[in-house]
């Protein structure tokens, strides 16, 4: 589904963030990408989302070389991926309801479908009561749950979570990971980037370990070992 072939990313003038990375993620997998801060996790995710171009090597998303994709194809790829980020990346001037609805509007879904689906997903995530609140009126945990609701609403085949628990307390961290596991059980591919040792060791899923931009380990039921 997602394939990296000898990917290197160098930021000018000469900072190599990823070096000669190759791996493949199959549909329905739960893959954790681990590494210290600055190991290249976020760059790797930005490459999958087409926010950066690799300096060398090729990236394929569903057999489509991202380098060859035009902007509308890149936008299509991004719409097929649900993203959850450490800083939530919510739309501050939109309400909870509107934040979730926006994703469906971007996809061109009809108003009736939006009115039906958004309350359902907010109910699932436990934010029904705060539908008309703005993100700034939510706690960190609630904001991250909203980000997950937004990532889920279009039923994407892939969820990318970049340090989703970075700003959360242990209780909310557990809740977010629990949700991601649940989503994965429905057949959705989950790519989780984190430097939280405890989470990884409890998950018992595939772990790709990055050190200084290189993959040093790729294990099926991996642990956090750096």
């Amino acid at each position, binding site marked *: 589904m997602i394939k990296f072939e000898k990917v290197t990313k160098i930021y000018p003038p000469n900072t190599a963030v990823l070096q000669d990375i190759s791996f493949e993620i199959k549909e329905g997998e739960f893959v954790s990408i681990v590494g210290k801060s600055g190991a290249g996790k976020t760059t790797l995710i930005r490459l999958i*989302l087409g926010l950066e171009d690799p300096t060398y090597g090729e990236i394929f998303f569903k057999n489509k070389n991202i380098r060859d994709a035009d902007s509308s194809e890149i*936008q299509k790829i991004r719409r097929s991926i649900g993203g959850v980020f450490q800083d939530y990346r919510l*739309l501050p001037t939109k309400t909870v309801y509107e934040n979730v609805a926006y994703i469906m509007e971007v996809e061109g879904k009809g108003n009736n479908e939006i009115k039906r689906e958004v309350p359902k997903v907010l109910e699932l995530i436990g934010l029904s009561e705060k539908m008309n609140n703005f993100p700034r009126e939510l706690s960190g945990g609630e904001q991250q749950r909203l980000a997950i609701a937004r990532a889920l609403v279009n039923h994407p085949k892939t969820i990318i979570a970049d340090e989703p628990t970075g700003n959360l307390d242990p209780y909310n961290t557990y809740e977010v990971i629990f949700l991601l596991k649940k989503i994965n059980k429905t057949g959705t591919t989950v790519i989780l980037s984190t430097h939280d040792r405890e989470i990884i060791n409890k998950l018992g899923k595939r772990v790709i370990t990055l050190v200084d931009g290189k993959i040093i380990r790729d294990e099926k039921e991996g642990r956090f070992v750096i």
Partner: protein
Amino acid sequence: MLTSFKRVFSFAINDFSRNKGISIAAIFVLIVTIMLVTGLFFFQGISRNLISQVQDKIDITAYFKESVLEEDILKIKDEILKTSPDIKGIKYISRDEALEIFTEKHKDNPVFLKALEEVGQNPLWASLNITTTGSAFQYEQISNLLQADAYSAFIERVDFSQKKDTIEKVFAITSNINMFGLVLGLILFFVASLVVFNTVKLTVENSKDEIGTMRIVGASDWFVRGPFIVQGAIYGLIAFAICLLLSAFFAYSLSPKMGVILPGFSMWQYFLSNFWIFILLQLGFGMGLGMISSFIVVKKYLEE
């Protein structure tokens, strides 16, 4: 397509009403700059009026010999009128009218009146008073025409050579005023455009992260850009409406006072007769610049 457009429009209205502080600030800056441009347009009207008033006072006069009959002078008047499209007007002044004007002009000066009495008869000549539409060069051409052989038997003298320096000076000054107005106008227009652009840039910059998020979730460029462009148009439209009302108010209330300073110039009439130009100028500057600025600024963030 229609649904997308409706959504873009509704996002713009929501963002506009939810960012009241920024919206009001942007509209205020637009009002100030539109009024500056409007002021320039009024200034242009005033300076044109002043220039034309000064130019109207410039003329050359051809004095006819005493023996020339009135019908011959009027025939020459018609002939001259046909020779050049640059001639704005020719006024015939008979000997009697010339005397009347002289007497009226010097009625408080007994020396002149006494001199006239001593002469015993009307010493003044009939004349043709000629004004042109344009430059000093036109006056020179007409003067040469009047002094040509065809008319030398009739015309005693043409006063162009006496007035030449004054005419050239006046035209040089008016031409400099026009150039100064044009340069000043262009500079102020450029500055006003920059101010609007930077104001829009600041409002969009406030949403920089939001644009980034919209890109990540796969929104098309137009879906991201659209609400900002519509917001730019809303700012411009509101500023335009306020500026049009302000312009009408100032033109109406200042018109009598301006009439005292500049006789023959009515600000209100100028506003009414150029109403559509005012609308185009204010709408184009406000809405057009608001939309173009939004387009350019968002484009920059979309490419980042």
